[in-house]
């Protein structure tokens, strides 16, 4: 199947050299260094911390990490089940989401459907 152009319109990245297969990250984490970020893992864990380092495999080094775990009644209430002290290494293989701590807010559930029994 012929797909037009190297994926997507506009944008700066030119993927001309597909043979070289460089390990380029689609997310530039260096802009998050020394900033507080929120990370979500497979298995429902969440953590916040200051990003101190990372590698192309998405392993992260976080400082002052706060880890939240989901209890049955937690359901995203973000109880502070803190366990970390200082420095942790987060495995890139289980990271599913990374976002800055500042760039998020809680909103009312937009998916609520009223069910008439």
């Amino acid at each position, binding site marked *: 199947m012929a797909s037009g152009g190297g994926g997507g319109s506009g944008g700066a990245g030119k993927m001309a050299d597909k043979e070289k297969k460089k390990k380029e990250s689609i997310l530039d984490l260096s802009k998050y260094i020394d900033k507080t970020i929120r990370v979500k893992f497979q298995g429902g864990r969440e953590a916040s911390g200051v990003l101190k*380092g990372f590698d192309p495999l998405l392993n992260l080094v976080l400082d002052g990490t706060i880890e939240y*775990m989901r209890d049955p009644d937690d359901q995203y209430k973000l109880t502070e089940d803190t*366990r970390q002290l200082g*420095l942790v*290494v987060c*495995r890139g293989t*289980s990271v599913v989401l990374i976002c800055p701590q500042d760039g998020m807010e809680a909103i009312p559930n937009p998916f609520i459907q009223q069910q008439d029994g």
Partner: protein
Amino acid sequence: LSAELVDKCIGSRIHIVMKSDKEIVGTLLGFDDFVNMVLEDVTEFEITPEGRRITKLDQILLNGNNITMLVPGGEGPEV
């Protein structure tokens, strides 16, 4: 950078948090590229029933597939 940090930890206490509600605390003897880990004097914690499991010795090989976090010098949920 992360591999360096784990490497600095060799010989000291480390606390491993799995994807599931399980945590392992022990002395780090070594690890490989996939972050499979060899630990000694290991205590295994199960988070939900909130009880310590088994204290194992004689070295274990922990499969890196399920590791979520590594905490150098961590003590784990010691209740």
